[in-house]
């Protein structure tokens, strides 16, 4: 079956390299590969088709070339593109006998899932994180689709935890990244929750973060330092209620942490030349990224990084977005997060660790990917032979369970209430009087529902459409609608209204019933709206006494706020403290391990030891 089959591989990274190799060795000779990424140094410990000399080049193209070296007679077409691009439409997908995913984010996985359902092409999904991995099979009508079971959505934190009451290091990282860094170096037009008011009301400035005309850079830096770590904390302390049951933070001022800096001006030991990448660590002679700096060292790094941005990278200020590969940005965020952590009595972390948290870095090793690639090909062959009774979901565990390191589980039947493959209406609790259409589209339709280019209709009125090819007046109309609150749209949205939401490319259509609600809990429902109605199948649990217990897992997409992935600190078993807030997407393996506690949760997808559902017949 392998010789004749036409296979699409999505992703040419960790899993992709191993998979392409295994496919070639197994006799597959007609392969398409899509990957939008370019090669980085950190890939080289496992993506073995790439060499140092390839850094910067397209993964898809280089992988293809490497395979052709030892299998010159097979057919590989490589696309350096995003699988979500319009060119990869249902017709494109229809040409394949099977699709194999080697992706690292939830968003793309959902998109491919929908296209495979629309094109009626079987999908073999996979993921790895460190020593954990899994392979799952999805065939329309026969098994669950990839979205039949809710997948953990990237963790987000309540605003007040980030701005006022951090208790974990990750909260400090998010503050440093999304607030301080963004405020100083990012888009000025973006909303930002940092307190911009200064100490003395006499200041003519509206925004204390703005640099005064001709203000000395050192002074500017120190002024900002005192404002965010000193003044803002004092302001927060004034609110007694907040600190009734919490440890009170300590304000930190530059005069205390770096007394000598206040006296001198602009004298840092600067040994960087103009051609090298500016680095505060380099300037200060700090060489070990795994070292935990003192408060003083963190302060020096912060001030130095701050200055270097203005001195050497001025043009980028106003446009910068945090990038984990931007050394100076990582230094800045590490230092800022550490100083804040110090204030709040949270342990400090090294740059290496901070970078992992801030950059959502997933630990990875070659062996797991090799194992998973092998399993993918085995399932692909079964799929090509239509051997549906033998399809298996296989979980590669870190420690043997029931003496198995590779645990096979039979796939489950499709979830009859999956809104993706079984068209179930959803319910949205929202305040229709204050919520804008734009928010619903961003937070629910694009984010939770994973639609790429959605279309929103109320009855027969089209209120929004996304994509190219719109007429000017249409586009203008939609732009207006985005800014309107739901109740004031051309077709008003009130309690009981039904929205129809579609994405043509994904061939997905959904109904959302609106329920008007005035109040939302700031901590538990930070989005100000709640989507529900999509229930995972009822899980039957066998406890140790052998009794059958039914545990219906909760219905809303919101329930998945309890689940996160966790990167690990080097040399240590995963500490559930290291949570991630991620604007990007989930980990490479979209499953992790269930534990308890408020936000320390992860979920093992379909843990075979616990779940017994209806098996595939």
């Amino acid at each position: 079956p392998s010789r004749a089959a036409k296979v699409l591989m999505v992703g040419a990274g960790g899993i992709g390299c191993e998979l392409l190799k295994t496919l070639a060795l197994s006799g597959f000779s007609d392969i398409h590969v899509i990957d939008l990424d370019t090669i980085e140094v950190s890939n080289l410990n496992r993506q073995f088709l790439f060499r140092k000399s390839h850094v910067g080049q397209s993964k898809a193209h280089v992988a293809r070339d490497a395979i052709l070296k030892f299998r010159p007679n097979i057919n590989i077409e490589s696309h350096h593109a995003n699988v979500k691009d319009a060119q990869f439409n249902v017709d494109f997908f229809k040409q394949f006998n099977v699709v194999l995913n080697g992706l690292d984010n939830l968003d793309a996985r959902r998109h491919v899932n929908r296209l495979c359902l629309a094109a009626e092409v079987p999908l073999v999904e996979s993921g790895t994180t460190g020593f954990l991995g899994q392979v799952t099979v999805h065939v329309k009508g026969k098994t669950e689709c990839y979205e039949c079971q809710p997948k953990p959505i990237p963790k987000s934190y309540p605003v007040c935890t980030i701005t006022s009451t951090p208790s974990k290091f990750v909260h400090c990282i998010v503050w440093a990244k999304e607030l301080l860094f963004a405020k100083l170096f990012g888009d000025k037009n973006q909303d930002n929750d940092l307190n911009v008011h200064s100490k003395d009301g006499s200041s003519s400035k509206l925004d204390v973060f703005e640099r005064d005309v001709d203000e000395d850079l050192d002074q500017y830096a120190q002024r900002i330092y005192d404002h965010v770590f000193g003044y803002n904390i004092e302001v927060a302390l004034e609110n007694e209620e907040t600190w009734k049951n919490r440890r009170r933070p300590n304000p930190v001022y530059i005069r205390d942490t770096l007394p000598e800096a206040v006296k001198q001006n602009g004298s840092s030991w600067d040994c960087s030349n103009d051609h090298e990448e500016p680095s505060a660590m380099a300037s200060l002679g700090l060489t070990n990224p795994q070292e935990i700096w003192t408060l003083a060292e963190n302060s020096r790094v912060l001030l130095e990084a701050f200055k270097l941005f203005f001195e050497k990278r001025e043009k980028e200020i106003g446009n910068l977005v945090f990038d984990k590969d931007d050394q100076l940005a990582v230094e800045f965020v590490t230092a800022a997060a550490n100083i804040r952590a110090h204030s709040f009595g949270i342990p400090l972390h090294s740059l290496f660790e901070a970078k992992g948290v801030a950059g959502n870095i997933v630990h990875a090793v070659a062996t797991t990917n090799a194992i998973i690639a092998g399993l993918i090909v085995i399932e692909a062959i079964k799929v090509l032979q239509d051997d549906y009774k033998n399809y298996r979901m296989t979980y590669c565990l870190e420690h043997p369970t029931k003496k198995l390191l590779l645990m096979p589980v039979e796939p489950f039947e499709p979830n009859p209430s999956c809104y993706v493959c079984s068209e179930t209406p959803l319910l949205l609790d929202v305040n229709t009087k204050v919520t804008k259409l734009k928010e619903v589209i961003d937070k629910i339709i694009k984010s939770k529902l994973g639609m790429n280019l959605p279309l929103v209709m109320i009855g027969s009125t089209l209120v929004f459409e996304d994509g190219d090819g719109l007429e000017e007046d249409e586009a203008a109309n939609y732009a207006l609608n985005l800014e309107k609150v739901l109740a004031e749209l051309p077709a008003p949205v009130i309690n009981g209204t039904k929205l129809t939401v579609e994405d043509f490319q994904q061939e997905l259509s959904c109904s959302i019933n609106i329920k008007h609600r005035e109040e939302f809990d700031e901590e538990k429902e930070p989005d100000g709206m709640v989507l529900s109605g999509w229930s995972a199948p009822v899980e039957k649990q066998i406890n140790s006494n052998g009794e059958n217990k039914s545990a219906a897992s909760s219905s809303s997409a919101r329930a998945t706020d309890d689940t996160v992935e966790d990167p690990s600190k080097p040399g240590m078993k995963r500490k559930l403290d290291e949570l991630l807030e991620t604007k990007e997407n989930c980990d490479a393996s979209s499953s992790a391990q269930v534990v308890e506690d408020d936000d320390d949760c992860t979920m093992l997808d379909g843990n075979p030891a616990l779940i017994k559902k209806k098996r595939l017949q």
Partner: protein
Amino acid sequence: VPWNWMHGRAGAKRLAPTSASREQLHAREGGVAIPHLVPLPLLGRSHRRETTASAAMAAAAAAAEPKTKYDRQLRIWGDQGQAALEKASICLLNCGPTGTEALKNLVLGGIGSVTVVDGSKVEQSDLGNNFLLDEGCLGQSRAKSICSFLQELNDAVKAKYVEESPATMIDTNPSFFSQFTVVLATQLPESSLLKLDSICRSANIVLVAARSYGLTGLVRVSIKEHCVIESKPDHSLDDLRLHNPWPELKQFAKSIDICDKDPVVHKHTPYIVILVRLAEKWADAHDGQLPSTRQEKREFKDLIRAHMLNVDEDNYKEAVESSYKVSVTPGISDEIRQIIDDSSSEVNFSSSDFWVLVASLKEFIANEGNGELPLEGTIPDMTSLTE
């Protein structure tokens, strides 16, 4: 030298693609030099700019710290794990697909060195199932070909080979193996494996034997002894010897009045102190014994609760939760007894660090410890005043 993936620009001249070195290899062998460099079509100026940019990045990357390359795996096993990898030397017997795949993973991860022992030449059938071989290798030593490709995967690894059949090596030169940390034996018949196993055991080398047949296979590890010191265990036991507090703790506990009427002070008395004092009180009333039966433990909890002034006293709740610690059996566990009684704890100059530590532990227990392990020294979180 500052850590920075861009450092070492001076050494950036090293742009030579590794495929070029492969060409040289073939030229020396007198084989046909197949061009391995895939020609890049020239698409005009924009393309050239792109190649320059990526060439610059490649140059920087080539001079980059290895730490960047290993970043993702360092996040699994840390510096120590990486150091252990880099110190290790592996011997692979037979570099067919099984062995090659295994070595690929080790080399990518930065293993110290690999030595391939394989006496065969590359044949047509090898080309079908081994991704490290291509047509240019036909007729050459399989071990040598594999090594040259492995070297490309990671030039920090020392890749060596011996053109010799593993069976012969086992029979005629057993001492060859004592230089290695791990011997990885693939596709060897049982007779060879048995001989190899006894060679490895006596030299205290790890042997990993693997066989693969179509869609099945087996891996078996043979080690004489493997000692693990878990420095960051999942479950740490806060052991403060509440059943037998050391003198300073006793004194400290005595110095605090657990019946202080001031409600703030009362609710901030550390639970350890509460337990030490109440345990003593209990022992006085029970002939020097501490709570041991279920009934007694329950009564002890009631005793603690009786001292609460207020429902919201967290320290007392902590005390009740931890009250079982007072009932811990003194002395050491059976597992520890087993280890310290092992004959290896009689150490000599060739003993490993692990056993030296065990020997010292044994001495401690017999002397200063008075039959108990040394105190761990960590203090758990507890509700208390800052002082």
